[in-house]
């Protein structure tokens, strides 16, 4: 069934179709509609779940950790300050190997107070052990929530579904809501082997000496490597059931492109419009949309960028005193595999729009240079 809906509601429908069993959430703009709709769905008994209206995001994640440990499919959603408040427990969820799924609506970090999009909130949680999947359409958001549980429960690592504030969260698009029966077939019920069980009591997360700590960590890393395999494996399976294909990266006209714009989130759809225009002018430009940040798809990135003569990474985020965060990621994947110059642009922070013109200006600047003469370039900032 097709329905026109906002990105936030696509998350709620995704979670409902995934038959989540415990939801614990705290309101923050621009996430609120996710939980508003879910609380209505639960109250109407259209979903058999417990909704815990916690008093903070820290408690939201704590409740998800408790619920998941007890064997329930757990879900939450947040943004920016809320995500940052959860930080300690993001490590905990991953370290405890719990397949929790959370949606994070990208919102720039304060101060100064803001509610508009950029990716610094989720990207600064890069090393917590969560998979991160960046979406560009409401359909992808809904589908990704369902897929996320499949992968998470196979490898026992949590997943963050990430989408831009407003340009996706509050933007209405036509979304196909898959049949519940199809979803049930695709995503079996959560059967957690290590659940808290009074008939088989175990202690989880207790004090661990240097004799054993590293062994827990290598298992997490291996699980993340396996997650990459599972994401690749799920793509055709999902396509077969639902007719839509999602890979780790999403290339657009990159095969013969001399210049590839690397972007993520909704900035990619604008990039594609720009690519079309530039192609009409005879410029061989392409776009590579980064979808999965963790586990990082090294091979796919190298493969997609192997023909490029120039690579431009447009970051809607910044690691102060360094590069944009996607630039660091992509450059490190290319190191030793490619000699191609990589340009890094910082654009669209705090929800400033990224227009097609933004990309035209970027391309015009790069055309004049053989290689970058600055570590990074700021786009359209007032001096």
């Amino acid at each position, binding site marked *: 069934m097709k329905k026109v809906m906002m990105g936030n509601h696509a998350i709620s429908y995704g979670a409902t179709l995934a038959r989540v069993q415990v939801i614990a959430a705290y309101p923050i703009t621009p996430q609120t509609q996710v939980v508003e709709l879910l609380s209505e769905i639960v109250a109407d008994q259209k979903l058999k779940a417990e909704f*815990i209206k916690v008093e903070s995001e820290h408690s939201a994640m704590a409740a998800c950790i*408790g619920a998941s440990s007890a064997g*329930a499919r757990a879900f939450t959603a947040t943004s920016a300050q809320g995500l940052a408040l959860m930080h300690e427990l993001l490590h905990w969820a991953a370290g405890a190997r719990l397949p929790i799924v959370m949606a994070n609506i990208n919102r720039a970090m304060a101060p100064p107070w803001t509610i508009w999009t950029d990716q610094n909130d989720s990207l600064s949680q890069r090393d917590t052990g969560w998979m991160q999947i960046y979406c560009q359409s409401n359909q992808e958001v809904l589908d990704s929530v369902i897929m996320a549980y499949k992968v998470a429960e196979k490898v026992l690592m949590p997943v963050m579904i990430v989408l831009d504030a407003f340009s996706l969260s509050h933007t209405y698009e036509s979304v196909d809501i898959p049949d519940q029966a199809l979803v049930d077939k695709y995503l079996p019920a959560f059967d957690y082997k290590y659940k808290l069980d*009074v008939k088989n009591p175990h202690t989880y997360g207790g*004090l661990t000496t240097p004799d054993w700590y590293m062994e827990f960590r290598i298992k997490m890393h291996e699980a993340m490597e396996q997650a990459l395999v599972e994401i690749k494996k799920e793509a055709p399976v999902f396509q077969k059931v639902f007719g839509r294909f999602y890979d780790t990266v999403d290339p657009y006209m990159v095969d013969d492109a001399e210049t590839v714009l690397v972007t993520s989130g909704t900035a990619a759809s604008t990039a594609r419009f720009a690519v079309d225009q530039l192609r009409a002018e005879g410029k061989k430009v392409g776009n590579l949309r980064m979808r999965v940040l963790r586990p990082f798809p090294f091979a796919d990135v190298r493969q997609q960028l192997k023909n490029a003569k120039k690579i431009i990474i447009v970051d809607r985020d910044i690691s102060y005193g360094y590069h944009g965060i996607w630039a660091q990621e992509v450059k490190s994947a290319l190191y030793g595999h490619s000699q191609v110059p990589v340009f890094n642009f910082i654009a669209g922070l705090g929800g400033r729009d990224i227009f097609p013109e933004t990309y035209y200006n970027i391309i015009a600047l790069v055309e004049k240079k053989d290689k970058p003469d600055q570590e990074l370039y700021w786009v359209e900032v007032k001096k």
Partner: protein
Amino acid sequence: MKPTLPLEELMSPGHLACQGCGAGIAMRTTLKALGQDTIFTFPACCWTVIDGPFPYSCLEVPLLHMAFEATAATASGIKAAMDTLGKGKTTICGWAGDGGTFDIGLQALSGAAERNDDIFYFCYDNEAYMNTGIQRSGATPYGAWTTTTPVKHFKKEVKKSIDDIVAAHKVPYQATASVAYPEDLYKKLIKAKDIRGFKFIHIIAPCPPGWKAKPEDTVKLARLAVQTGVFPVYEVESGKYLQTIKTAKRKPVLEYLKLQGRFKHLKEDDVTDVQKLVDLRYAELEKRFQGC
């Protein structure tokens, strides 16, 4: 002689508590009342260590270790899961120290209490951050030495009234208890187990190294805490107060203080101040016990 408590043990020997640890006695008694169909979550606290290092555990019930400030919310999450999974009969417990309850975990505690989530929240109170080396907490009493309230600048603030804070949430059941009166604690838990909603149990649990007391004095101290009125033992059921261990003639606090090195520096005047504080608090509670 008929034993006053079940002989069955769900806490095995070989745990890592210090000699005379009140927190150990508190857990042992609690498990006797709650039984096997119980799940615990612990934050960071002495019990993180007492339970034993990976892969050991001295408890024969499932246990989820959790972050320091997250006890109540974690227990709420476990409870919600058990309810959706059709295992609503299992008793879900958060078990935290005073620091994890009075201070860093207060927000989550308040949240779960206000929602009236159907869980037990236990606070074993040794009146300081013992796990990190005896720093003051909001539960440390007036006059006490800790490593962050050194003798020259002993603690000048009074102990936070956590029980009143919880009472303000109008929870269906709350109680204080002392490890010197295991039968009292046992009885309270047996009753509370059948009460739906939030249950708060606050247990005074002497800590020999933290209180600079003799391990063999733990039970004596826990008893004196009650007999002096330093730690009155009572329950509150639907707002109704009942003193379960009566202390008609209270002993002077000095008897309690003098067994503990953490109060050694107190001069006569200071002891008088402590006595006044205790009297004041006791009088306040006494009115509630009498239903005034």
